[in-house]
């Protein structure tokens, strides 16, 4: 049983060793929070900040992101710009 416990523990610690927190991205890293809504713990961006970050990530281009991922980021940028327009636009 001890062995079972050790293996379980090992498996568990390996699984959680990968940090789930948002970290500062280097130039070569993907921003998983923007890309896949992963590791966003505690973050709350204003809509302008989100637009700025998405633009910055899209600029990283093919070196960091695949074509599909860039398309996804572009869709998210369009969505964020839509939210800002919706907030600012008139109409009762």
């Amino acid at each position, binding site marked *: 049983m001890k*062995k079972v416990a050790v293996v379980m523990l090992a498996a568990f610690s390996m699984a959680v060793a990968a940090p789930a927190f948002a970290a500062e991205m280097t130039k070569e890293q993907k921003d998983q929070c923007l890309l896949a809504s992963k590791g966003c713990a505690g973050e709350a961006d204003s809509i302008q900040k989100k637009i700025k970050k998405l633009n910055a990530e899209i600029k990283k281009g093919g070196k960091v992101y695949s074509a599909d991922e860039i398309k996804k980021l572009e869709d998210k940028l369009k969505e964020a710009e839509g939210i800002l327009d919706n907030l600012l636009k008139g*109409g009762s």
Partner: protein
Amino acid sequence: MKLNKKLVVLAAAGALSAVTAFPAMAFENEFHGLYKFKAIVSNLDNGGTAANSTFSVPTLLKEKNQANNYMEQRARVMYIAKASDDLKLVTHFELDARFGGTNGAKYGPVGTSTDAGSLDADGVSLETKQVYLDFNLKPTNFKVGILPYKDALKGIFLDADLAAIATTTKVGNATVVAAFTRVYDGNGLGLAGGTHVGDRNADVFVLDTKYNLNKDVALGLSYYLLANYLPQAGGDIMLHTLSLNGEGKVGPLSLSGFAATQMGTQKDNPAVAGNSKKQFHGYALNAAAKVAIGPGAFRTAALFTSGDGNAADKSVNGWTPVKTVAGTGGSGSSVSTYNEGGMMLLVRNAVQNNTNTDRYIVGTTDNQGKGLFLYSLGYDANITPKFFTNANVGFAWAAKNGIATTNNATNFMGTEINVETGYKLYDNLTTSVQAAYVVLGGAYKGVAAAAKDPENPYTGRLVLTYAF
């Protein structure tokens, strides 16, 4: 037994790592919002809502108007519950208040309640703007609920929040939006004439198609059906609107435009005054260009909506947009817009005029059946990343007879000159000053009391906008 134990361990470890190695997508709680403050001095903005049109309201076009001065605010709070990229609930609320309070009909029977602008606040003024579910079943996106919709005609037919079931499907370079919206429920509004729920309503069916020929050029074909079978004046209508629209870029030059035609009938209904047999023949045309020059962009645009020269005959030749219907509990506001001219007073513009009490000379794009030709020129300058200014000039004509019947009266409604200049105090906080002046044309000759010419409309606004 040993083997079994090992298997259990392996299975448990496998399951655990499968669960934790790829963390499930976070459930996102997104909050966004807006706060806008305006201090206004104007002889046209008068604290009322953006009514269908003020074209023929001489009280707003007196020979000697006194300047209204007031302050108002608008706050919007948006909460999005996002389970994944493919599923979210969008909720969006609005709180309007005029400093000192106002007791319009939307706050309860007039005189019984106000917005929250009066002493000690407490007014009930939380309004629903949008509440809808948004989910993807690829390749289709579904939106169900009270959602924003703007037509492919730059808003001149319908630009509003409405209860709808809408789908957007992208296949290759083509995008198809198909939507059904119930804009009025006759039974729910207590109108006499319907026998059961779903019997007498007003519905709009939408089909917007768009095809991207390449990265820079897109063509669209749209069809809208307004089926208004409410048992009241303005009902018994089947109105078809068909349009071709396009946009493209050539170097620094952006071009866009559309052509739209309307056909349909109003049935004869002797039970309702005014609902006699009529046929619709309206049309609308638009062309616009924008080019980057210097520190900003130069814009020019023309819009034409047809007018109806004879309201008494069986032919409605004027452009017919969707309108709010009197007596249905609505606030009587306009649901068509035209933003690209940048007008502040001549034509309803939902971009620059975005609080609760804006007034316009042309409130709805049909110009009360008279039709409209608007030509505009403008320049948007970003002088520094924080400092911006834009200026516009617009010329408006009624497509058919103006309101004045005196000698020398013309269809020319007026020339608007406006300027907005602003500064970004923070990324999310902008302060700006807006000023607009309209030199009224021959269409208003002698329409004020005692056959005098009315005073030229103007407005000056100090604006503070925080969006996040």
